């Protein structure tokens, strides 16, 4: 399993796991319909509290990243996750802030940042880039 937990970072373990699974789905490492391990099994493998893993699955389901079928297990959802507009916007701005801070310290000019983002979008056919570009144009 590629999932990793790092205690002692000051970030709740369920947040760490959610981020990793979200990333894996966005990058295609986890494909639609793919099954996730049962809660107890994953908790054992990662050596973390089963309630933590259960919470990860619940939250991801709420966000539409995975679906849980009773008695069958949890699966990566087909199609893109459905977050509330406000929540989506907030998270995107946060991610862009991080990107821009890094670009500042690397001394990248704005055109290079934009170009790199466009190239990144072109590499990910699943992600339609309009929203992200709009966000970048504003900042």
């Amino acid at each position, binding site marked *: 399993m590629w999932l990793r*937990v790092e*205690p*002692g*970072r*000051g*970030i*709740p*373990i*369920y*947040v760490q796991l959610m981020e990793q699974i979200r990333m894996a789905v966005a990058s295609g490492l986890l494909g639609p319909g793919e099954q996730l391990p049962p809660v*107890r099994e994953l*908790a*054992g493998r990662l*050596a*973390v*509290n*089963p*309630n*933590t893993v259960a*919470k990860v699955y619940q939250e991801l389901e709420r966000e539409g990243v995975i679906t849980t079928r009773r008695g069958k297990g949890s699966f990566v959802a087909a199609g893109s996750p459905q977050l509330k507009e406000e929540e989506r916007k907030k998270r995107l701005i946060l991610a862009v802030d991080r990107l821009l801070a890094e670009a500042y310290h690397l001394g990248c000019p704005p055109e290079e940042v934009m170009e790199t983002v466009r190239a990144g979008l072109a590499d990910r056919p699943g992600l339609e880039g309009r929203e992200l570009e709009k966000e970048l144009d504003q900042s």
Partner: protein
Amino acid sequence: MINPDYEPAVLTRGLTKVFKGLAVLQDLNLEIPRGSVFALLGPNGAGKTTTIKLLMNLLQPTAGEMLVLGLDPITRGVAVRSRVGYQPEIGQMPEYARVGELLELCRALYPTWNTCKVESYRREFGLDPRAVVKHLSKGRVTLLALLLALGPEPELLLLDEPDTGLDPVRRRQVIKLLVEDVAGAGRTILLSSHNLTDVERLADRVGFLNRGHLLLSRPLDELLAEEKKIWAVFPDGVPASLSTWPGVRRLEQEDGRTVLVVSGHVEELTERLCSLDRVTFEVLDQTLEDIFITYAEEDRALIR
């Protein structure tokens, strides 16, 4: 008063223990829901072992009431002990007994003893049934105590420093076992520990105990998400009302910056800071250790 209809795994109200005129535990109100893993954290002498011993009726409380699995451990001692697994702190094991003899003894004591499981754990822990306790390493004694606590497959496990003397590989092995076989089966664990990294993996709730006081008792995720420090620079002066903003516990000055020690309301605070002109700030995550130290310092400041 304790409501008998509601039955968490552990419930105490005003639990107090005075020992030689010194309150080692003061007015403890603890509530541990069934199916959770609760870590009691605190420095030596904070009252962790005293709490566990009171719940096992190994000490008599000076005041207060408690329920363990819905039963009063003082009047229903045998019933409580038959459903609770207890791993005492190191040094409570009869020195001249052999591992096998202790296992036999406990098997006879507990009707729910799972011989098959105990045997598989015993092998996993590398415990020789012929070995004499006195000759076991510190880590092996800890594993033996854990084995005896797990044997009856109790509804509630009380573990007093379950990582004493264990190397990282054994510690991980113990965590996995507790996760899969105890927490995964919906049973409850109350443990005391100094190892905060392991606590983060295992626990879903934590309590901070300091000088006999329970400073807080909260879900771990909530604690890590809400306890933050915000470093801020106010070129036009610190707002006079800053210390009364929601969630602000206290203010500190460090390297010419103002540090807001914050408990919750993080989003609201960042919005307020954003609305001020020329203010720069950063929200810093706090580790469990940082948070504990912050609370212990505030507790110490109170007695000065």
